[in-house]
């Protein structure tokens, strides 16, 4: 089967700033494909190009076999999108929002009722159908948007930071719905996130940084690349300890927030030996499997949560925030 998304040399410049630098990848049908990276890495720009919202500066991409520049309407019919910011009409009811979407996408009138019931059931909002969206919580709005994105049975569902700004409980609910979707509908899901733990549900993950793809693999393989388990220790003299570890075990040690971090294979066995023979007094020892955050750290030397947003991105965000304040 041909890949559902094919991207070749796709790039986007904003004047001097290269937001996306010639990326290549393809996504198979039915996959959950994750796009991971810090704010300003070019994730949203890529999604905007794939969803025909933004014209690429160069390169090409096809979704469901349709070119994203030449056959925009066919692409639009093949995809559903859930944006970072809510795009519901607050003043209308859930039902009215869904009904309008059916009309925008030319869903046949005879099956609209059935479809609306079906998607509301998936996201557990069937009993809220007649309510004005304004009265919904953030999580409910997100769910309604996911439902809406599914109404026209898209081949690919784009989720741009689907859980941003939601509380942890709601976040995990949203993921349940997304997994349910994959099982039931066999839909291809393309999502971006900068939450490491969330990216783990993906079949494959592309890591993006400064507009470039720096890795593309399954979460398992990505973690393996880090080189084993993560040991975190704190000692009475971190500098001495760091020198000792680098010398005795030939490990690359990172010293951050009063903690030393390094990777070892077979961590459980290593730890027994290590605690017994290490000379600098230990305050704490922690052993864990690497997370995608370690992967990112390994690939870029930075933690993903350290906001590495460019000046432009910060400005954009501030402007959006002040606009929001002005509105309410």
């Amino acid at each position: 089967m041909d890949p559902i998304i094919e991207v070749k040399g796709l790039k986007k410049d904003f004047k001097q700033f290269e937001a996306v630098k010639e990326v290549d990848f393809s996504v198979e049908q039915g996959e959950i494909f994750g796009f991971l990276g810090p704010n300003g890495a070019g994730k949203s720009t890529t999604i905007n190009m794939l969803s025909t919202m933004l014209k690429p500066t160069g390169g090409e991409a096809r979704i469901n076999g349709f070119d994203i520049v030449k056959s925009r309407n066919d692409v639009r019919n093949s995809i559903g999108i859930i944006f970072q910011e809510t795009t519901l009409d607050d003043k209308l009811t859930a039902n009215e929002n869904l009904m309008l979407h059916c009309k925008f996408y030319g869903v046949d009138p005879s099956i609209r009722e059935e479809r609306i019931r079906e998607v509301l059931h998936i996201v557990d909002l069937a009993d809220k159908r007649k309510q004005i969206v304004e009265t919904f919580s953030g999580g409910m709005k997100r769910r309604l948007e996911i439902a809406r994105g599914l109404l026209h049975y898209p081949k690919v569902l784009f989720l741009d930071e689907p859980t941003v700004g939601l509380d942890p409980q709601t976040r995990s609910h949203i993921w349940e719905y997304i997994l349910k979707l994959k099982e039931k509908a066999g839909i291809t899901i393309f999502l971006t996130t900068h939450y490491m733990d969330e990216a783990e549900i993906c079949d494959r993950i592309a890591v993006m940084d400064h507009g470039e793809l720096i890795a593309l693999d399954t979460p398992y393989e990505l973690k393996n690349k880090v080189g084993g388990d993560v040991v975190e220790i704190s000692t009475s003299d971190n500098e001495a300890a760091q020198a000792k570890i680098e010398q005795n075990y030939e490990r690359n040690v990172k010293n951050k927030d009063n903690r030393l971090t390094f990777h070892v294979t077979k961590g459980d066995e290593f730890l027994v030996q290590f605690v017994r023979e290490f000379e600098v007094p230990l305050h704490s020892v922690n052993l864990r499997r690497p997370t995608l955050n370690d992967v990112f750290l390994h690939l870029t030397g930075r933690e993903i949560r350290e906001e590495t947003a460019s000046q432009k991105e910060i400005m954009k965000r501030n402007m959006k925030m002040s606009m929001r304040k002005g509105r309410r």
Partner: protein
Amino acid sequence: MAGIVAIWQRDVLKFFRDRARLVGSFAMPFMFLILFGSGMSGAMKAMMGGTGASGPLRDFDFVEFMFPGIVGMAVFTTSIFSALSVVQDKEFGYMREILVSPISRMSIAIGKVLGGSTVAVFQGLLMMIFVPFIGLEINLSIILRLIPVMFLVAFVISSIGLLIASTLKTSQAFQMVIQILIFPMLFLSGAFFPLSGMPAWMNVLVKINPLTYAVDMFKKIILQADQMTPALKEAMGLNLSVFNHTITFTEEVLFMVAAGLIFIILATVSFSRTEAT
């Protein structure tokens, strides 16, 4: 086509649900009619030759004169402000939902303009509530002739609104531009006072103002100009002429149709450039 209907339907639905807006767009013309109309009526009468005026001018009633202008004002303000929904959709994000859908940009623009026009016609008709209070006689045939004209006017003005809205990103900016536009357009349209004896430069502005022809059409229909004496017609400012040619009703309709076509095309082109991001 279904797309146009959906866009239209949403705006109409939202208008009727928003009570504040319904009342608000009703209040302005109402206050103008009561405060301005009644307040000025005595002074106007005096200017027209005093209370002892003889002959046809005795029939000049300022409130009656103003009423078609008030209908024009209601249609005008409602339709030009209807484009605010375009700017608000951009601000609140709903525009992205519309723009990523397979509806063409042209259908969106036309749907928006038709939505604004429908709402404006409704507002204009609502003004008919005042008819019994100001001593005008209006029958069904007048109203039936009025509706298509109101729609035509509303279509032109909504297109102008969309043209402006498509270039702006915030509702504050939109409201400011519209405020700047509303007053000269209203005052130089003959809605509030007869357009006679004006300085030449002002006369030029009056003649290029689409609202002038709109108000004139409303006057001709509502005041039944064809049954008036020539002197009263003159006093009411109903002999609108360009280059010494007295404009006929048909010419006004043609002018508005042309203006409507030009502005809807400009608005659609400008709106199509809207990027969803």
